């Protein structure tokens, strides 16, 4: 391909595939079916910035037709004024881990039956609604750029969510469990997850609303993982750092937290956020964002590596048909050496929080918020009454200093992360961590 002076670089990322979805709501199979997609993003780097085309039903045109598309993208780039350059970064593709059982080899009928068993196992006495959903997404990704880098791979993600709702005397509460994987069909023999959701909903009926205030808090591995993701991960994304939208901007080499804390993002890890190569064809690997309390690296794509520096490219990710953004993948706090008992012993009055209903961050202001599924009050080192609807908010820079203990065993949880209107699969994880003087939110009073 001959490139005109208006085109310094181009790449094409074409994703096609199919999505299978099953929804069972109170025994009723509401839907069980498959949809198909094929969509592409063509990016052209013009004299200044990017011109991007997103095209549904892309048919990989060649010759003149392809040149016309490049021209069309290049003409969009004419309105850009930001001088964009791309850093060199190593290319390469990892093998996609093999699946134990390819979900596509199991009939929709059989999968619906298995999901129905999970759904019915949540239906305990006192439960008024159970709903199970299964999602399976197979993507065939192909990439080519103007430097003759080319790759293609196929990946299939699948998993399920189970929700149970309990209701008594006007109080309605829910329990929720989920499990998603890149390692193949994961819905067999999971009835225990249904029971867990049912039991949680029932116990939350009797839980009290948490009283907000400042107190010591222990976060379970799932919530501590969300903390790493919301409080640190987003603020380390190179595009936000470049825009000045991060409190971590200009802080490389500075101590921003307790020396117990090391936070890593690693898309090469065989977890739900795995990518064999990033969305710009760059090799993926481990980036240590915080190393024993000191900020070490930002997460980058090629553009932000060139403009900001101090970190690694290989963190560009995209939903099918969307332009790549700097994103997290598998983000976690590394293990420490404390036990949960030691953490509890150190708290006179506090709270232990379990599970996550998600979170959000304002990275420029440096304020985050996330919500636990449930918790228990701690009095003199012992777990007491259950509390519901409890959240935690804080300022990134002060909260990282208040981490006083870090547990021995890390656990990863799967989810989806939203940014710029795009949702990508991620995993977060951590061991138990203990925070001093955390701001805990809840609508209850003492």
């Amino acid at each position, binding site marked *: 391909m001959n490139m005109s002076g208006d085109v310094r670089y181009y790449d094409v990322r074409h994703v096609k595939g199919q999505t299978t979805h099953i929804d069972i709501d*109170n025994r009723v*199979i*509401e*839907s*069980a*079916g*498959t*949809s*198909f*997609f*094929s969509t592409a993003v063509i990016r052209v780097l013009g004299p*200044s*910035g*990017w*011109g*991007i*085309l*997103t*095209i*549904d*039903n*892309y*048919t990989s045109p060649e010759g003149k037709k392809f040149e016309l598309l490049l021209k069309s993208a290049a003409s*969009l*780039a004419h*309105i*850009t*004024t*930001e001088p964009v350059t791309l850093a060199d970064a190593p290319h390469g593709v990892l093998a996609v881990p093999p699946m134990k059982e390819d979900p596509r080899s199991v009939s*929709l009928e059989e999968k619906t039956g298995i999901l129905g068993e999970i759904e019915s196992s949540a239906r305990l006495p006192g439960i*008024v609604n159970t*709903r199970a959903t299964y999602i399976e997404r197979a993507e065939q990704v192909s990439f080519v750029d103007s430097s003759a880098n080319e790759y293609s791979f196929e990946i299939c993600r699948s998993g399920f969510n189970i929700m149970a*709702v309990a209701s008594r005397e*006007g109080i*309605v*509460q*829910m329990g929720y469990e989920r499990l998603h994987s890149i390692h193949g069909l994961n819905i067999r023999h999971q009835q225990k997850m249904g029971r867990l959701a049912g039991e949680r909903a029932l116990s939350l009926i009797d839980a009290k609303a948490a009283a*907000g205030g400042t107190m010591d808090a222990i976060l379970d591995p799932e919530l501590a993982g969300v903390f790493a993701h919301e409080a640190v991960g987003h603020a380390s994304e190179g*595009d936000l750092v470049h*825009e*000045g*939208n991060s409190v971590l901007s200009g802080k490389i080499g500075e101590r921003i937290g307790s020396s117990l804390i090391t936070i890593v993002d690693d898309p090469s890890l065989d977890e739900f956020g795995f990518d064999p190569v990033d969305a710009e064809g760059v090799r993926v690997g481990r980036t240590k964002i915080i190393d024993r309390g000191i900020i070490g690296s930002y997460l980058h794509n090629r553009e932000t590596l060139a403009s900001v520096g101090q970190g690694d490219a290989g963190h560009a990710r995209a939903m099918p048909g969307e332009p790549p953004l700097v994103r997290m993948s598998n983000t976690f706090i590394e293990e420490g050496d404390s036990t949960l008992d030691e953490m509890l012993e150190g708290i006179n009055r506090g709270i232990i929080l379990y599970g996550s*209903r998600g*979170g*959000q*961050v*304002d990275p*420029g*202001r440096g*304020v*985050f*918020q*996330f919500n636990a599924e449930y918790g228990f009050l701690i009095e003199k080192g012992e777990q007491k009454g259950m509390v*519901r*609807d409890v*959240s935690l*908010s804080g300022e990134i820079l002060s909260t990282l200093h208040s981490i006083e203990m870090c547990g021995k065993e890390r656990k990863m949880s799967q989810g989806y992360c939203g940014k710029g209107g795009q949702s990508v699969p991620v995993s977060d994880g951590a061991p138990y961590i203990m925070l001093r003087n955390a701001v805990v*939110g*809840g*609508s209850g009073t003492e």
Partner: protein
Amino acid sequence: MRWWVAVAQNETISTDELSGLVDTIIRAGELLVEEIEVYIAGGESVSAELKKTKIGVATGSKSLGLGIRTIDHGRIGSSGTNDPLAWRKCLDAAVSSGTLATPQEWGGLPGPAGQEQPLLSFDPEVRVEAGIAEEAINEMLKGAAEFPVQVMSGSSDLSTGFLHLANSNGICYSTKKSMVSVSLEAISDQSTGYEFDQSVRMSVDPENVGKKAAFFAHHNRSGADIKTGNYLLVLSPMAMAQLLGNVFIPAVNGRNVHAGRSKLAQSLGQEVADTSISIYDDPFRIFGPGSTWWDAEGVPTRHIDIIKDGILNEFLYDLKSGYRYGKQSTGSALRSGYGGLPGIGYHNLVFDGPRCNIWDEPAIYVHDVVGAHTANPMSGDFSVEISNPSWIENGTFGKPIRKAMYAGNVFDLLKEIDGIAKGERIIGSMVLPEVRLGGQRIIGT
């Protein structure tokens, strides 16, 4: 029909091929199932994105998707594809999906109703051109320059789209949509400010958006701490939209109501809000973002009083939940894209009541909230971080507050309305005023 023109701009398929496609799919489907519905959505858009004060990215998009729904002996199947020429595979997938679905009471897809109506949510003045997006960006920057702040990011989007809905009972509807939106985010020290505007027409005010984002970033620079306690709060339309959208809307969805997932399930006819409050769906609002004469399955839309003078009056139903629970569809079926089954939603949700001056006494202003999606949709409980918390003093913005968490319950706050401001703004497909609430819980530092 005008919508074919938009389809023809996608170069992978010709106008002639598409013009007969819908009929062909319906004829093929009728041989396999009792009823079939075909939904085609597409459009084009252009956007410009700011990186600090310069445009870094300009994006053009062309989208097209085909959705098929089949009904046979009460079994509902569906599939979707964005390759309309692969419709046969899509039809087969829809039919096969229907064989697995649990059969339910079904009284048929609707037939045609009434004359062709004028477009409600489309302005032919909206042109999808990069130069117009660029102009809006420059106006926003001009507005932002009124305060000493740094612009972090911003965007300007223009889009037009078409929808076509046809079924085996003779419905063949088409409509067009347009949308213009602008947003800007600025920072001063560690104080961030975000603002946006959207409209079906070329009526957004980019300069004002830039100015307001910059104002909030500048205003909140040196906030003071606040003590935990109960306060009078003024929620902006943006904050209201987040709390209502995450909790109240799911609770009036007919399917959730009958499935045991709504706290309001037993409250029909009861007082669930301050008696001055009405919340209704107005699908016929001129230039409303969600305005439409028919819903996503061809049922004529209508005005729905969800809450009237504080009394819970009506829940929202689509055909499926209506037939299942012995209710009439309220014309509330919506699709978020071409694939999957339609769900239940609102077209233009309006929050209304007697208006007054709510800036006449000291209160905490809530510009936006962080984390509303973590609210408990069953109980309504939430605890969120406030963006740009500030005191209202002497009828204007007073001292800023550094950090404040707001904990409450969405169902309770509907009863704690202390006043509704004059004016309103459109947030997504909601039409909302500023609202003042008494005795709200703030967790300070």
